[in-house]
């Protein structure tokens, strides 16, 4: 089966009962890893990703250090049991690409120049994968970075959008990820109105693309409120 060959929408309802532009339930937990400098768990429906930040810390061996800026490293990884068929824990090509695009989605938000010669490590672990893992991970990373006290220009918010037949949809689940006609991952700094991630697969017209970006933008703005609320609540409660 390929993109477009699976019936994913019936009477305006998606296979999990959602309306086209409806997000799954979003769950945010902060400070889930006590040994970490900052950590968060974000779930979009069944998709659940942990992010843990270490740093800024000294970088070794020394020849990797940059003298004028800090370095950001990201590692996206899936637990072997997070998917239908067991995934070997060694990084595959997909994980390596995703690690890079997640890093590039976060990097514009961080004042890396503030801590030269050091490294900030963002580690992501997908506990369960039901679509949209990279954008879920970016949201978790944004929160973990903030909790680690890394100076940031803005939070980074992310979501996925797509297309089934002629309907544009929001927040793709695993089956939609595989078989929808279009799949787009999007991240931005909502406070700045700047895009930091844009990846698209599948056939669209220019007009459809515009609309997809609009949906993604307004969703990221909602997620921005969720991220800010979570952080606010924490500082209200704990400090």
């Amino acid at each position: 089966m390929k993109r477009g060959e699976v019936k994913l929408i019936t009477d305006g309802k998606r296979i999990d009962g959602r309306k086209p532009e409806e997000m799954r339930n979003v769950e945010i937990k902060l400070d889930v890893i006590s040994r970490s400098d900052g950590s968060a768990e974000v779930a979009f429906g069944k998709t659940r990703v942990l992010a843990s930040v270490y740093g800024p810390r000294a970088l070794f061996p020394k020849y990797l250090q940059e003298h004028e800026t800090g370095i950001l490293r990201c590692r996206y990884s899936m637990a072997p049991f997070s998917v239908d068929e067991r995934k070997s824990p060694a990084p595959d090509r997909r994980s390596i690409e995703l690690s890079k695009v997640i890093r590039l989605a976060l990097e514009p938000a961080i004042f890396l120049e503030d801590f030269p010669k050091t490294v900030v490590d963002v580690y992501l672990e997908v506990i369960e994968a039901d679509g949209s893992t990279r954008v879920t991970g970016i949201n978790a990373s944004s929160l973990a970075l903030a909790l680690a006290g890394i100076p940031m220009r803005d939070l980074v918010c992310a979501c996925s959008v797509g297309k089934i037949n002629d309907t544009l949809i929001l927040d793709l689940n695993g089956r939609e990820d595989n078989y929808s006609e279009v799949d787009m991952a999007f991240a931005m700094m909502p406070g700045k109105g700047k895009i930091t991630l844009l990846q698209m697969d599948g056939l669209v017209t220019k007009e459809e693309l515009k609309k997809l970006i609009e949906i993604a933008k307004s969703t990221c703005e909602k997620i921005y409120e969720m991220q800010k609320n979570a952080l606010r609540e924490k500082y209200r409660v704990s400090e």
Partner: protein
Amino acid sequence: MDSYVLELLEKGKRIDGRRLDEFRKIEIRENVVEKAEGSASVKIGETHVIAGVKAEIAQPFPDSPDEGILIVNAEFTPLASPEFEPGPPGEDEIELARVVDRGIRESKCIELEKLCIQPGEKVWCIFVDISVLNHQGNLLDASALASLVALRNTRIPKLEDGKIIRGEYQGKLPVIFKPINVSIAKIRENLLVDPNFEEEKVTEAKISVAVRDDDKICAIQKQGSKEILFEEIDKIIDLAVEKSKEIRKLVK
């Protein structure tokens, strides 16, 4: 911190106020990953691991053509501790996985012969994957417990034309015992149950003992870079058997 741990121990006290023979609070959550055939999250204090079970079809080993296969694997994810780094599994991960494996295997809690699909050709291969998410000491007991609980709630997938139907199940994995792993650290003349991260840093030797429901011991592993005395072994075994009963009660 190291010297503080030792100072308190002189007075028979631990940094978190526990008795020497006291476990931290244990929190077990079952079926935490829907995609997995079985899963469990275990917290011992702030130490946190998840174990997930996947069932795949595999060829049996030539010398046991009618038995399923059990594979235990552990990953110290770099999320869990500033000391952990990404990369292929190190010796500590491999040792932990192999000790958990032996505790389960030697207890004979899984009837591998019930996992044969077609003798000599196809059997179930049960993967237990342990992800360490927060490292505050005693990863081994947490991992063994999470693995046991995950196996006990594991369902075997349905087969159709020899292929796995994901999300549909034909029944539970038969797990007939509850082997429990108890790790005891030696720090100077003290024996401590369930050492936390700070205690492990000054631990001289550690003995991990897997105990079955009938109090039989099914696996022992000495760890740590210092020696242990004969009389200490006796005390450790007694203590492990005793504590195993306590923990076993937490397992459904």
